[in-house]
């Protein structure tokens, strides 16, 4: 429901908290990936919101967050600035961050630059390397993924991503219909725009992993067409003291396919963190 202005635009976010009201609970920030929205994570709230305040932010131009205009110059730097200002505006000193796919990439970049703002990091299906040919499930025969999006349109691109196993078709035809409709709310300019920075040097988070200072959980998909289990193990091995949980699902979107396993892994990870916060 609420919105907050950060880095010049209105961000929509959901804020759910069913913890004991006489205590200040820690906050979990869930950040969705490209083309999706906070709605895709509604089912994660009940299992977490008795213990944590759960915030789900709609990415710039996604969900109900404001369209930044077709001339917006998408950059990792700006997307990161969005995030740290979001934390500032909400008065959140530090959070447990759960990022999916591109949300995970941004999580690494932000916790690398501002480690004091992140109590923990959960990387759900983070692609380690999107250089050709590792990104062929995204380019689907076109010169690059931007071309693919422009030619196919948002709905067409979503269908292709479902075919490739990058986007999940879920457990029912009703889910699929809903998911495609939700993704269709994203404008083509945003879909093309947000993908571009992934191929810039700033998005090469691989270089940041070895110096990450935030406790990290790697949720590794087994059948993602854009990131292999070997890549996920490499991510875990590169981040100091990171933990890995393998989530065996049919697609890249394990948080949709295997939510209970993912949430179980996250809860266990969070419960074992050394408690540094006060009540």
């Amino acid at each position: 429901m609420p919105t907050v202005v950060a880095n010049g635009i209105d961000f929509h976010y959901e804020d759910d908290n069913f913890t004991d009201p006489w205590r200040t609970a820690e906050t979990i920030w869930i950040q969705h990936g490209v083309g999706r929205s906070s709605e895709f994570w509604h089912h994660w709230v009940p299992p977490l919101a008795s213990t944590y305040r759960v915030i789900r932010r709609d990415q710039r131009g996604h969900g109900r967050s404001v369209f930044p205009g077709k001339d917006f110059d998408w950059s990792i730097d700006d997307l990161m600035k969005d995030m740290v200002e979001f934390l500032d505006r909400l008065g959140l000193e530090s959070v447990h961050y759960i990022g999916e796919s591109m949300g995970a990439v941004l999580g690494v970049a932000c916790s690398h630059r501002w480690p004091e703002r992140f109590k923990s990091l959960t990387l759900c299906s983070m692609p380690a390397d999107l250089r050709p040919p590792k990104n062929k499930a995204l380019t689907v025969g076109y010169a690059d993924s931007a071309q693919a999006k422009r030619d196919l349109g948002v709905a067409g691109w979503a269908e292709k991503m479902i075919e490739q196993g990058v986007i999940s078709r879920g457990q029912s035809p009703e889910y699929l219909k809903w998911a495609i409709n939700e993704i269709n709310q994203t404008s083509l300019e945003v879909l093309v725009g947000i993908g571009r920075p992934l191929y810039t040097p700033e998005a090469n988070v691989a270089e940041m992993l070895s110096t990450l200072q935030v406790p990290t959980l790697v949720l590794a998909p087994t059948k993602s067409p854009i990131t292999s289990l070997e890549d996920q193990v490499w991510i875990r091995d590169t981040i100091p003291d990171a933990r890995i949980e393998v989530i065996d699902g049919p697609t890249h979107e394990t948080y949709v396919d295997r939510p209970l396993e993912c949430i179980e892994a996250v809860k266990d990870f969070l419960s074992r963190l050394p408690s540094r916060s006060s009540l």
Partner: protein
Amino acid sequence: MPDVIANGARFHYELDDFTDPWVESDTVWLQHGFGRSGKFWYQWVPPLSGKYRVIRRDMRGHGLSQDPGPGHPWNIEELLNDMKSFLDELGLESIHYVGESVGAMLGACFAARWPERIKSLTLSSMAMFMNRSDYEEGKLAPNGGMDWPTALRELGVGGWAETQMVPGIFAGMDGSPERKKWLIEQWNKTPRHVAIELQAAVMNFDVRPFLTQIKVPTLVLAPSNSALQPLERQIQVHRMVAGSKIAVIQGPGHEVYFDSAKSATAAHRKFLNSI
């Protein structure tokens, strides 16, 4: 956040819904009792809201609902019409109802009168009638050594509630001081005149004639150790509602929906799954 005008008054309610948007989900209505508010049910939202739309309504004069002002002619009939009108205004054909204390008594009457609006009925720590000697004169309820209306007047609603925070009675008797403080603060949000005048109205409330008329699936959530409602009384309720189920919830006192939310919600979920 939202408000609705029903039966001539403004009612505040919270709606928490984390159900899958591509399926039609049932609604659960959680109704607090005397002097409390929807906030007291916060522990019930996560266990239910993945599968049900969860509504917590603030009763007339309570929480953030409109205060009718001192001298309002409080009566059970009006409270029942408030509930019917609330459902009508929200366009809710029928719902799963969970009530505690007076909220349960109202739920029982409502279900007897309008069964088509109630998919299931859960009565948590319900009294069949409020015996003057037990409650008003303080045989079971301490009231700080005064009678109930005097205690409300002299101590305020929070002050009176604090006298009840003893073993067998209200939540807040154990646990942290911060928990007790929060509870007293919540009780204190109820205007004194609302509590005093509603108390007078419920002293004549007897739901026994309605219990045998209830035809909807019913669960009795019976507190194991309530000084106000011993287990025998809860078993009587169970006997009077044909086909009802009973679950004993272990807890230190009367308010098991709050003190033992985990087991209470588990019993409730089990019941809903069995319908």
